[in-house]
C-alpha cells in the first residue's frame, strides 16, 4: 500500500517580516529588437502579485526542505521543481545530498515511488519572483509514502513559521491513487 499526501497552498504575503535587500534582475538588452521581444513577457492579466524576490524565494524553499528533512525520515530524495534559477546563487540547501532540483520532477517521483523507498517528497513551486514570470504563487508539497497511514505533512507544515503567509489552494486529501493527485496539481497551474 502506498499513500500520497498533498499540501497545496497559495502565498498571500511575504513569509518573512524582516526587510530584504533589493535583488531584482535587469534584462540584458543588447539590441533594440530585444525591447520588442521583451514586450511579450509582460502579462496583461496579473492574478497574483509578486510577494518575494529571488533571495526570499530560495530561503523559503530551503526552509521547507529543511523542515521536512528534520521532521520526516525521508529515505528517498526531496524533488524540487523550480523554473529559471536566476537572480541569486542557489543556496546550499538546494545543492545538498538528498535534494534534486529539476524543471519536471514527475518522472523522478514515479521512479522513486517504485524503487522501494519509504518516503519521497516532491515540491512544486509556482511562486512569482518577477513580473515577467507566470505563476499563481502556489506551493505544493507531495509526500509519496509507504509507511504513513495518516497525513503527517499537514501537521508539520501547519506549525512552520512561514505557514501564516499561505492559504489553502484546495482541500488536499490523502489518496492511494498517485495519478489523481498529480493530475489535480497539473490543473492548478
Amino acid at each position, binding site marked *: 500500500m502506498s499513500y500520497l499526501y498533498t499540501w497545496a497552498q497559495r502565498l498571500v504575503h511575504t513569509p518573512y517580516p524582516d*526587510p530584504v*535587500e*533589493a535583488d531584482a534582475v*535587469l534584462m540584458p538588452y543588447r539590441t533594440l529588437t530585444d525591447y520588442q521581444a521583451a*514586450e511579450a513577457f509582460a502579462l496583461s492579466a*496579473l492574478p497574483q*502579485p509578486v510577494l518575494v524576490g529571488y533571495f526570499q524565494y530560495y530561503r523559503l524553499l530551503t526552509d521547507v526542505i529543511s523542515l521536512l528533512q528534520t521532521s520526516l525520515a525521508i529515505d528517498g530524495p526531496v524533488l524540487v521543481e523550480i523554473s529559471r534559477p536566476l537572480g541569486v546563487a542557489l543556496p546550499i540547501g538546494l545543492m545538498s545530498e538528498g535534494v534534486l532540483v529539476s524543471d519536471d520532477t514527475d518522472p523522478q517521483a514515479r521512479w522513486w515511488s517504485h524503487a522501494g523507498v519509504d518516503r519521497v517528497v516532491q515540491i512544486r513551486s509556482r511562486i512569482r519572483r518577477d*513580473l515577467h514570470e507566470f505563476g499563481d504563487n502556489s506551493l505544493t508539497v507531495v509526500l509519496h509514502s509507504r509507511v504513513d497511514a495518516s497525513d503527517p505533512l499537514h501537521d508539520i507544515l501547519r506549525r512552520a513559521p512561514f505557514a501564516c503567509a499561505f492559504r489553502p489552494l484546495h482541500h488536499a486529501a490523502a489518496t492511494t491513487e498517485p495519478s489523481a493527485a498529480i493530475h489535480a496539481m497539473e490543473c492548478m497551474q
Partner: protein
Amino acid sequence: MSEVLAVPVVPASPVKIAHAALRMQPVTLQEAAGLETPAYLFDPAVVIRRFEALRQALGTRLVVSFKANNLVDLVVRCGHSFVDGIELASIGELGVVTGRIAQRRYVNNPSMDAAFMRAALISGCDFIIDSVAQARALAAQDAGARSPRALLRLNAAAISNGAVGADHFGMGEAQAVEAAAILADSAVQVTGVHCFAGSNTFLRYGVSHAGHVRRALDHLQPAVAQPLEEVNLGGGLPMNWDDELGQLESYRKVISELFSDVSVLHEAGRAIFGHAGVFLTRVVAVKTLMDRHIAACDGGMAQNFLLASTEGILRLHAAPLLLSSTPPAASTHPVTIQYVGSSCNRQDVIGHAQDACAAPNVGDICVFEGCGAYNSSYTVRDFLMLPAARSYLRAV
C-alpha cells in the same frame, strides 16, 4: 469608442484609505540594526495604498512617474497595481519596465534620441510629443503594423499667457497644430494633449491650469484632424497631498465638469513614493566645533543629494530620528547638531537638529523620513567613488 476611452475611469468617491495607512510605520531599532547603511528602506504596501488613494481622490486615471523612484524591485512588487500605466523618460527606464508592465507606458523626453524612440515604438509605448521636430522624427519611423498613440505636449506658460512659470517643455498651440498635421500623415494616432504646470504647483495652480488646458483643447480640436479624446494634466501634487483632501475634493468637481467629454489623466511621482521610503545612515564620528555638535555619517549627499538641500533659496535641513542602542548622555542644556555626509564637499550637510536633548553617539542610526521619491534617483553617484546606498524593501 476608441481604446483610450475604453479604459475604465475611477468613479468619483471620497478617499477610503485611512491617513495613517498612507505613511510608513516608524522604523524600529531592531529593524534598522539589520540593515547595512547607508540605505533606503521602502514599503511597497504604502506605495500601493498611496497610489490607490490618490487615484480615488482625483477621480481620474493616474500615471506613475517612474523617474521619482526607479528601483526595479518596487516596480516588481507594485507594478500590478499601476493600472493606468507608467511615464518613462529614458531608454534605461524603458528597459526596466518593458516585459514587466503590460499597462500603458508613456515615453516623454524633449531630447528623445533615435534609439530611445525606436525602442519605445517597437515595444508598444505611447509618445508624448514635445516639439514639431519630434513629431517629424516619429512620423518618419517605420511603424510596421503598429499604430502608436501620441499626446501633444503643450507648454503650460504658453497656453496661459504666463500665468504659470515658464519652462522649456512642450509647444504653443500653433506648433501643436503643426505637429498634429505631420503625425496625421503617418501611422501615429494623436489621441490628446499633455500639459504639466511644474513640480509642486498643484495646490496653487491646479484649478486654473485645468481651465487653461480646457481652453487650449477647444482651440486645438477644430484645427487638428484627429479627435482629441485624452487629456493629461500632469501632476505637480505635493508629497503631503493627503493633508489637503478638501482641496482635492473641490478640484475633482472642477475636473469632472470641465472634462466631461474626454478621458483625464494625472501623473504623480512624489505624491505616490515620497512617504513610502526612508533613508538610513549611521553616525561614524562625532565632534564639537564651537557651539555645534557634528555627527559625521556613513551616507550623505553622495547617496541622497536632496537631503543636502542645495537647490532651494534657503537650505532647510531635515532633523532625523535617532535610533540608538546606547542611552544618550543627557546634556544640561539644549544642543545643536549638524549631520554631515561622507564626502569632502562642504555642502555635504544633510541634517540639522536645534535644541536637541543630547548629542548623538557613534553607531546611532539616523532615519530621514519622506525619502521615497527622487532622493535616490536624483543623486549624482560618481563623486569620490563612494558606495551607493543599498535598497531594502519591507514585507508585503
